[in-house]
């Protein structure tokens, strides 16, 4: 039965074959099927809405169907739910639901035929309406409309006049010179013109007077500051990275200034595009004067937003941000929409999205730091490689030296040195989990497959290439093939004739004859040819082409370094294998055919599953300068002479513990090495100097502890315990208790291990007695005399855990003996007196002095150290102290040098791109990186002429991407940019959706004018300034402006409010406060101090009086001023600034310090310039509004000042009234709008 049915269907298909020819065609689909799906079904089954889980925007989606099962079964119309639904059969939900929208009989028939014929969904991606979409058509040759009207000054005017006439409109009259000058100056520079500018212009009778002003303004640096800002809007420039902690980008400013400079130099737009996408590649191809600028330009891509806590885990979103930005910025296309599914409206497939993705995944982004990995790395050097490699090595050497010296001087070394300097691409330090949670697998630019991991054990001992790191790559012993590869950047000149490669390896375990091995392969990605080094069964084989020769042997567990020296002209390769004791040399052929090796592949020796030994790999480099001698030493000369520790120990022996007290500042609290307890009131003072001189001789101060019920105490860490050979140590201190005013609380004297938990001996004392702590309680062991100096002497036998003690004073107390406390573990490193005595309550005031811990017995209290001895000892101590101070001073100098080195780096760097490992990527289904689909070749958007197969991609393909964007046949790039320029001059573009030229964008108001401008722009060498001149000269631009709210689509300038930047700059300019110098870096904290987190993100905003384009623009929070006045969005492309009018803006003009300070500064200038109020007002009007006040305005202002002064509550009234007028001017519509 089933067979019969099958046959019937088969026959049916055969019968329809003739008709199906047609029905299977793309044309049929595009004309009959897709319009219905797009126009009727799509509303509920496409876009964001997927009713019933069904989508209708791809053939696969229909075949897969929704909640009710497949929508269509190819070849089976009767079984296809979709057909039954549109036929409104009884047992299914009728579609579309509204009866009055039912499909026509013809449409039903089309669907039936289409399904019957196999429901062919054309392979070629075509948008629903895009095939004939205007923006994908080549830029046409527009014919300038003929016009004999005298109004027309430029070709633009001829187009505009035709539009006007068609609409039955007439052009408006020319604006006056004042209006023109103000409009022109704001348009080109974002600053108000000065009264002098107006005078010059008005007096100039030359017919070219206007053009002269244009030229002057285009030549002003302010032009780049204004137009650069437009571009920065579009490319969503920001000074922070945008991940959870918003890490600062201290080098981003270089890109900002590059943009400003590019406009000022009138850099051709095609070059501007090429450099922003591939400047690093261009720079490498021909390192020249513009090396730094070209590299800096790729800051555009580097600035892509970062996401998450560990932003490398969200790198796919960063690439998405890049693709989104490239699409909108250059093509006016929302390519980003194709990340999860084919674009709904425009002809961009998910496959094409990932073909672009591959380009950026093959490129290397700088790393700004993140909460998880709190440091910057992979910045791009702004010096050519040859220079960089030597400077980098010198830098690393110097920072390593400094770090080691500092460590020797017992100074903490900035953590950044340990973590962030080992940054060359070849090493594995960056890959390590300790470098931040990459889960121990290699990350970009490395690619890998199989079981490999980054481990601490794989650190090579050799240090001649990189200083001692902490990680390398481990391949565990096993049978499965593995592979790790990377496109290698040559550290050094790219076109050198000789190159040196080096890698360290260690085979971890033994092998037997039948086991496999590993392979190290260097390849030229251009020729595909390479050289192999095989590690197998104890032997190292060099293989080039057919030839194979033995390069040496390895022993299990032994690190070796392998070097390959390539002679690219002779096609020779020299292999050296060995260690610091010797290198074996062998030779082979380099089959690169003149091309340099640029791809390193580390892998199993074959694809077979066969046992292989474990392998460690480290220190990979390819450079154009010879490798140094193989060495395990990083040659650092430690400072000769004494160490701080040694000197400090000498000093301690010499001066004892008390010596440190004597050295401390008088009448102050204790300082290190002594510690006072929290909230301590312990103080040094001369009155507390003990008269006893049996140990230290005469001193000048002792410690005072006032009567205290709160916690108090002081003490210190004892370094090496100076016990004698029998383990006996002698301790003593002098004490004078004052009579307690009430109560009888006790203090505690502690000697033991740690600050409290493990006492060897504890003595507690009140103002009249000493108590010893025993295993069972406290025993009163000696009396104390109030107000008398006494010395407590303790002889501690650490071996036998016993002590004896006595109190020596006016009356010698009987010696008492005790056992060390049972909990004591035999270690003594702490001694202190604190208020944890055994008796609660108020503790008596104390003087304490002359602490001693020594191996020699303490002399009797009647002994006196001779003054001469004291003097000698003081002299010696002073000498030691000075030595220590000198060493520490040296450490300070070293630390400052290290910090400054870390701050500046080996050479200037940019937050810019570099090449990674070229590779194609797999589609991420539904935008999820962990759901890989098919691999797609790198390429561009086919609907815009981006057929990748016709273009040879090199490296990542970024350079070819740039070339495609600016290719004369690309229909979008020129149109998009001239539309932007038009928009910035007129207030709106010819296409009103400047970032969306796709099907859903708006159509150009005058397509021929747009194409005329685009074609001319390209013809004129992509020159912005030429385009400005054309537009500004036009009669249409020079017309009187339109009111912002006029109901009119007639071309012409519309009145606009100043942008946020223009408002701030104008206020600063007219008040004489604007600093016109260009902004440079922001004063961010030094990267080695960073530790921003989502709990404490970076959130500082730096202010200055420079132009607003130089303001720091953060991402997580908007800049408060720019945010208030509709500044750019730093997270997405801003094609057109919003212009909202909200009362918080009015509050700014009423109350913000900026406005009040500006009015104050301005009034001072006016008062200096003129003596009379009316004169000052006239001047103010001229400066702010470029005109004199009308008589009525003047008298209004004068009256106002009078009223204001009368109402002013006192003080400097006259001054204040002028300020109030000036504030009103600054807040006035006339000041803040351009007609």
């Amino acid at each position: 039965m089933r067979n019969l049915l099958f046959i019937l269907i088969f026959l049916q298909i055969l019968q329809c074959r003739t008709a199906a020819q047609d029905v299977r065609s793309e044309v049929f689909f595009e004309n009959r099927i897709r319009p219905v799906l797009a126009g009727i079904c799509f509303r509920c089954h496409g876009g964001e809405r997927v009713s019933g889980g069904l989508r209708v925007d791809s053939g696969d989606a229909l075949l897969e169907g929704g909640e009710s099962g497949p929508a269509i079964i190819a070849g089976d119309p009767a079984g296809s739910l979709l057909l039954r639904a549109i036929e409104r059969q009884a047992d299914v939900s009728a579609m579309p639901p509204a009866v009055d929208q039912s499909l026509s009989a013809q449409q039903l028939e089309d669907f039936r035929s289409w399904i019957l014929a196999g429901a062919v969904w054309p392979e070629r991606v075509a948008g629903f309406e895009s095939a004939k979409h205007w923006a994908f058509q080549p830029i046409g040759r527009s014919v300038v409309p003929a016009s004999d009207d005298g109004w027309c000054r430029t070709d633009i005017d001829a187009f505009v006049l035709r539009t006007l006439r068609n609409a039955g409109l007439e052009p408006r009259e020319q604006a006056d010179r004042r209006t023109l000058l103000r409009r022109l100056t704001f348009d080109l520079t974002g600053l108000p013109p000065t009264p002098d500018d107006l005078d010059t212009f008005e007096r100039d009778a030359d017919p070219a007077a206007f053009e002269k002003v244009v030229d002057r303004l285009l030549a002003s640096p302010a032009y780049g500051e204004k137009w650069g800002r437009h571009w920065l809007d579009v490319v969503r420039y920001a000074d922070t990275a945008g991940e959870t902690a918003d890490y600062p980008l201290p080098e981003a400013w270089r890109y900002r200034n590059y943009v400003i400079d590019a406009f000022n130099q009138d850099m051709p737009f095609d070059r501007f595009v090429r450099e922003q996408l591939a400047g690093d590649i261009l720079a490498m191809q021909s390192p020249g004067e513009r090396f730094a600028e070209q590299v800096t330009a790729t800051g555009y891509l580097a600035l892509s937003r970062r996401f998450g806590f560990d932003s490398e885990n969200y790198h796919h979103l960063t690439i998405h941000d890049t693709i989104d930005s490239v699409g909108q910025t250059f093509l006016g296309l929302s390519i980003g929409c194709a990340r999860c599914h084919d674009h709904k409206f425009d002809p961009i497939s998910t496959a094409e999205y990932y073909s672009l993705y591959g380009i950026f995944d093959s490129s290397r982004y700088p790393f700004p730091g993140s909460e998880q990995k709190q440091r910057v790395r992979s910045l791009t050097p702004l010096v050519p490689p040859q220079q960089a490699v030597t400077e980098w090595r010198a830098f690393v050497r110097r920072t390593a030296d400094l770090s080691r010296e500092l460590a020797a001087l017992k100074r903490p070394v900035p953590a950044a040195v340990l973590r962030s300097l080992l940054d060359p691409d070849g090493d594995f330090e960056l890959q390590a989990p300790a470098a931040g949670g990459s889960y121990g697998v290699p990350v970009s630019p490395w690619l890998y497959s199989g079981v490999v991991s980054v481990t601490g054990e794989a650190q090579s001992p050799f240090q001649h290439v990189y200083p001692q790191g902490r990680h390398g790559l481990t391949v565990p012993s096993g049978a499965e093939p593995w592979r790790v590869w990377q496109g290698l950047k040559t550290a050094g000149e790219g076109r050198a004739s000789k190159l040196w490669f080096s890698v360290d390896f260690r085979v971890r375990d033994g092998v037997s004859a039948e086991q496999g091995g590993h392979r190290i392969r260097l390849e030229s990605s251009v020729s595909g040819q390479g050289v192999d080094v095989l590690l197998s069964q104890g032997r190292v084989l060099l293989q080039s082409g057919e030839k194979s020769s033995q390069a040496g042997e390895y022993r299990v567990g032994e690190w070796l370094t392998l070097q390959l020296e390539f002679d690219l002209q002779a096609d020779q390769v020299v292999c050296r294998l060995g260690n610091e004791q010797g290198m074996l040399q062998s030779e082979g052929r380099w089959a690169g055919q003149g091309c340099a090796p640029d791809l390193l592949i580390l892998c199993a020796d074959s694809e077979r599953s066969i046992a292989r030994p474990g392998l460690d790999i480290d220190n990979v480099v390819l450079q154009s300068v010879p490798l140094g001698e193989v060495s395990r030493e990083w040659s650092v000369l430690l400072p000769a002479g004494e160490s701080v520790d040694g000197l400090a120990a000498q000093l301690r022996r010499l001066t004892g513990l008390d010596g440190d007290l004597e050295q401390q500042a008088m009448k102050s609290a204790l300082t290190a090495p002594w510690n006072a307890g929290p909230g301590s009131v312990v103080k040094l003072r001369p009155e507390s100097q003990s008269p006893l001189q049996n140990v230290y001789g005469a001193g000048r101060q002792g410690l005072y502890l006032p009567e205290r019920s709160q916690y108090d105490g002081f003490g210190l860490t004892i370094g090496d315990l100076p016990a004698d050979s029998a383990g006996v140590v002698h301790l003593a201190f002098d004490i004078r208790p004052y009579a307690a005013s009430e109560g009888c609380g006790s203090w505690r004297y502690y000697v033991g291990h740690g600050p409290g938990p493990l006492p060897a001996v504890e003595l507690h004392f009140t103002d009249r007695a000493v108590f010893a702590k025993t295993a069972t309680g406290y025993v009163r062991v000696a009396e104390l005399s109030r107000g008398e100096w006494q010395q407590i002497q303790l002889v501690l036998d650490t071996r036998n855990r016993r002590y004896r003690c006595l109190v020596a004073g006016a009356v010698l107390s009987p010696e008492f003996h005790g056992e060390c406390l049972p909990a004591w573990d035999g270690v003594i490193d702490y001694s202190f007196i604190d208020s944890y005595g055994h008796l609660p309550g108020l503790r008596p005031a104390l003087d304490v002095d002359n602490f001693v811990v020594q191996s020699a017995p303490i002399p009797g209290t009647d002994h006196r150290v001779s003054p001469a001895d004291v003097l000698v000892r003081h002299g010696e101590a002073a000498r030691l102290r000075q030595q220590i101070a000198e060493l520490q001073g040296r450490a300070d100098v070293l630390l400052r040098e290290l910090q400054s080195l870390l701050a500046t780096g080996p050479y200037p760097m940019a937050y810019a791109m570099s090449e990674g490992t070229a590779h194609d990527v797999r589609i991420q289904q539904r935008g999820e990186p962990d759901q890989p689909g098919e691999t797609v070749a790198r390429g561009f958007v086919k609907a815009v002429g981006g057929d990748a197969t016709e273009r040879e991609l090199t490296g990542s393909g970024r350079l070819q991407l740039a070339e495609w964007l600016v290719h004369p046949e690309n229909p979008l790039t020129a149109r998009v940019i001239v539309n932007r320029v038009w928009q910035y001059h007129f207030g709106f573009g010819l296409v009103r959706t400047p970032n969306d030229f796709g099907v859903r964008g708006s159509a150009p108001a005058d397509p021929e004018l747009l194409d005329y401008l685009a074609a001319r722009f390209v013809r004129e060498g992509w020159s912005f300034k030429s385009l400005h001149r054309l537009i500004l000269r036009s009669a249409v631009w020079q017309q009187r402006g339109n009111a912002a709210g006029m109901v009119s689509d007639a071309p012409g300038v519309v009145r606009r409010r100043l942008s946020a930047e223009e408002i701030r700059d104008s206020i600063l300019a007219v008040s004489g406060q604007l600093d016109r110098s260009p902004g440079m870096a922001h004063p961010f904290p030094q990267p080695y101090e960073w530790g921003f987190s989502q709990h404490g993100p970076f959130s500082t905003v730096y202010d200055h009086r420079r132009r607003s384009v130089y303001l720091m623009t953060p991402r997580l929070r908007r800049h408060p001023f720019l945010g208030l006045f509709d500044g750019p969005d730093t997270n997405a492309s801003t094609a057109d600034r919003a212009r909202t009018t909200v009362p918080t803006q009015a509050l700014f003009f009423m109350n913000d310090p900026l406005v009040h300070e500006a009015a104050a500064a301005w009034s001072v200038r006016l008062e200096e310039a003129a003596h009379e109020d009316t004169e000052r007002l006239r001047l103010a009007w001229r400066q702010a509004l470029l005109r004199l006040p009308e008589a009525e305005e003047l008298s209004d202002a004068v009256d106002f000042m009078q009223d204001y002064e009368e109402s002013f509550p006192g003080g400097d009234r006259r001054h204040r009234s002028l300020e109030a007028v000036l504030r009103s001017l600054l807040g006035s519509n006339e000041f803040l709008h351009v007609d």
Partner: protein
Amino acid sequence: MTRGQCLRSLAAGSSLLPGLLSELLGEDSGIRERNPLSPGIPDGRPRASRVIMLYMSGGVSHVDTWDPRPKLMRDAGKTVTVNEFQGRKGSFSMYLKSPQWTFRPRGKCGTQVSDLFPRTAACVDDLCVIRSMKSNHTNHYEATLGMHTGSFTFARPSMGSWISYGLGTLNRNLPSFIVLAPQTPYAGGQVWGSDFLPGAHQGTRVVPGTEPVANIQRRSASEELQLLELGLLARMNQRHRAARGDDALLEARMQSFETAFGMQKEMPEVFDLSDETESTFRSYGLQPGSTSGFAWQCLVARRLAERGVRFVELIDTGSSGNWDAHGDMQTHAPLAANVDQPTAALLQDLKQRGMLEDTLVVWTTEFGRTPFNAAPQAAGREHHHWVFSSWMAGGGVRGGMTWGASDDYGIEVAADEVHVHDLHATILHLLGLDHTRLMWRNSGRDFRLTDVHGRVVHEILS
């Protein structure tokens, strides 16, 4: 700029300029045809006309507060296996950790709430406790962003901004969306940002202290002087406009100074609590004169709601010192003490004033905390977005009920999941806004608060 664009730009500022807007809209019927959701007009039957959102920063443990899990108490110390821990995939054996506060039945409905919120628990007959909340991300930043904007990665307009855009405000002297946040939360200002929606819909952050809103304090020596100055400015602007004919933008800007002056007067009044009675202060637990703590935030929220602010959000703490109890669950106690009494007082106060009927109060956090931990003796709990609890009250929500459930140990949603998107859809629905129709076109695409998701939880509506 066309008239349409001009009107849109004004509409953008409309929450603060309703009079002017309606006048302009009256002249132009096109705008409504093109955008069925032009501000001020809900498209459904609104049950609430304003929202007060109480946001607990850091992640409140559900199993210690609103979601009693007796089996978790019983089996504490035993191990469970989970396939993800702190964002890492894999198989992890974890020790169940007992809640540290006692749960008791409260109110007439008998809903069990722990002793962490004794006073709020006493209001439980007015609350709908949702025990099946679910979020997308285990990290504070993303989860906080998601709870506020519906987007867990990219900055998007905040819920308050969407509502401001959808409904406008009832008081031209106050912003439509106000955030009372003494400290900056995770994800910073993006939490109340309007992103691509017009700037007027951005949340205005109020910081307790002398200048709660930027530039709200008069800098002129006296109000009289400021009025004189504004008068001079108005005359300048009138002359300027007279020479230029009708221009709605110029008009709007002139108007904005009047509004700003009103704001300058009214904003301080909102924060001047001297007209509140002693018993009010007592009920909120607020010391007169103090501006610190959640009590101040709650009382000010009530005053803002009274004055017609559409969306008031209270963020109890910032991105540190919050409910993020990794180290010790006991740190929940002082944080709960900070919010418990004022929250209860706010609910009672609104009810007493008859405002709870049309004021939706939403209490939430970014995620819950793990019912388990890696070590048996661990004193804290980690982030847990698979299930957590929130509650809503007033504004068309059924009180005295619970909705949804977690599993026996509080690890996963067991029934009636309410995803963050569903919560958003429900909030919009209660305000009479259809979450599938409240849209804004940006970069060639229509955006919604709920993206392509969201289901209105009709079951909890009264």
